[in-house]
């Protein structure tokens, strides 16, 4: 089985952000970057399938040379090879990205193309289903359980209040949700091996960019920090405030 996993290099969102001078981006000074959380789960799902059923995982990432670091991390987890689709920046337009990925994945002979459900920076979750549409492949998004057998897949996905069980044929495009697998930590042996694994660089054939960031702002700070008191005797005061001040009850 040949599995592609599309991954994104994102800033660690547990850090404090400031807005850059252009007012359209974050100040990147001092930021740490890593594989987007859900993409890590997708790599893990791909590796587990390849280990169990035979086959290999190819990781693909679009962006400047810095994404090679993220690709090497996936290689050290166990992916066989990596592809950088080289672009000066990662555009905000998911469809422009989807076109570049689809162009590169089209003739790759992949049985599965995996994505994380959403990238933790852009928070859009559009590129996976867009690639499926462009390639004309079946697509299941936000998968929380997956099994593949005899060229067919069964997946579960969580909707509001209900769980859907779906069947689909391969090849297919899938996006991976939380809860399915925790990404393994690369072992030293894997890190050493990753240095010798192939990492190909090809130019990204980005589509026309028609979605741009006009402005980026920090959300209004919460006024918070008001402690009403201690213990259960404070509860009536809380209920009164929820009714009369916050007007949410």
């Amino acid at each position, binding site marked *: 089985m040949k599995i592609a996993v599309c991954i994104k290099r994102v*800033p660690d*969102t*547990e850090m404090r*952000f400031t807005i850059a001078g252009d007012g359209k981006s*974050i100040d990147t000074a001092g930021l740490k970057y890593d594989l987007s*959380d859900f993409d890590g789960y997708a790599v893990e799902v791909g590796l587990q399938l390849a280990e169990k059923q035979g086959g290999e995982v190819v990781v693909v990432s679009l962006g400047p040379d810095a994404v090679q670091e993220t690709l090497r991390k996936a290689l050290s987890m166990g992916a066989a090879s990596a592809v950088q689709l080289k672009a000066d920046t990662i555009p905000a*337009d*998911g*469809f*422009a990205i989807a076109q570049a990925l689809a162009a590169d994945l089209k003739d790759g002979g992949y049985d599965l193309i995996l994505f994380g459900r959403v990238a*933790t920076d852009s*928070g*859009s*979750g*559009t590129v*996976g*289903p*867009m*690639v499926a*549409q462009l390639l004309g492949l*079946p*697509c299941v*998004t936000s998968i929380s359980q997956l099994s593949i057998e005899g060229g067919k897949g069964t997946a579960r996905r969580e*909707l*509001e*209040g*209900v769980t*859907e*069980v*779906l069947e689909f044929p391969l090849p297919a495009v899938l996006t991976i949700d*939380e*809860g399915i697998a925790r990404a393994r930590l690369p072992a030293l042996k894997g890190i050493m091996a990753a240095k010798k694994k192939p990492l190909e660089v090809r130019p990204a054939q980005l589509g026309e960019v*028609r*979605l*741009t*960031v*006009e*402005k*980026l*702002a*920090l*959300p209004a700070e*919460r*006024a*918070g*920090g008001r*402690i*009403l*008191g*201690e*213990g*259960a005797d*404070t*509860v009536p005061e*809380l*209920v009164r*405030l929820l009714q009369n001040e*916050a007007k*949410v*009850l």
Partner: protein
Amino acid sequence: MANMFAFAESRGGELRSVALEAVTAARQAADASGGGEVHALLIGAPGIGAHAERLGSYGADVVIVVEHAGLARQSAEVSAATAAERIRGGGYRAAFFSASAEGRDVAPRVAAALGVAMASDVTGFEVQGDAIVARHPVYTGKAIATLRLTGTPAVLSLRPGAVTAAEAARAGRVEPANPAIDPGAARVRVTDIVDRGSATFDLGEAPVIVAGGRGLKAAENFKLVEDLAAAFGNAAVGATRAVTDDGWRPATDQIGQTGRLVSPTLYVAVGISGAIQHLAGMRTAKTIVAINRDKDAPIFKIADYGIVGDLFEIVPRLTEEVRKAKAR
């Protein structure tokens, strides 16, 4: 003057609340552009068309009703193909979906089929001449991006609850149509839908969320959280990552950077210290209440109202008081 398209989501034959939000958004956009029409697509099993009138009362001039016996369960493949076909031929300025589980599945396929860009999980928008400007939380809610979408039509998915559904009586004229592909020929088949039972109210859409953390000490103590949620009557139950990792609650209940990002009207944090990864998922709630034993817990810094103390005494009392307040 421009016409707008809205995708009216339904499940199991029932209209979902986000359908009215999408129609309301389309109505607002049409009015802002000088008064175009709103066309809503309603797709499902025979009988789904009965909801057309309701969509009309929220601002749909035309309701495209697609009924098919093979659509008792929604198929993203069929919905996307049908919506794309209709939008392609309809000359719409913009198409509105919900950023619900189904909308997040369908809308990007529609955008790709039409060859246009889309703005996802939008919390506000404006029509500005040839462009549509949309606001969208990025970096797990730590920043808000203002996006400019050029090209027609613009595809947007709206964060559930971001637009308040508002009545605006229109004709809601029914226009029957066929699915763009035969549901029997869809490659992905939904074979079962399992009710998770717990949530009548989904985390993404509930007006109130009561969430529990490690402070509850054991899985069975979530009963306190569930009782409080039941007292509110319109609440969903959430949890921290520590709790879902320990298996006290299913992973789907997790609120935070790697779980659900929620913005309810009221968020009650029970025994939650307030790790950054959790705050990322709930800091946009309108009002936050925190109950925790540790007065220095970070959750108190963002809480509008905090009570320090033993949650095992405070929460049952709160449940009782909320029940009384609701009964008044």
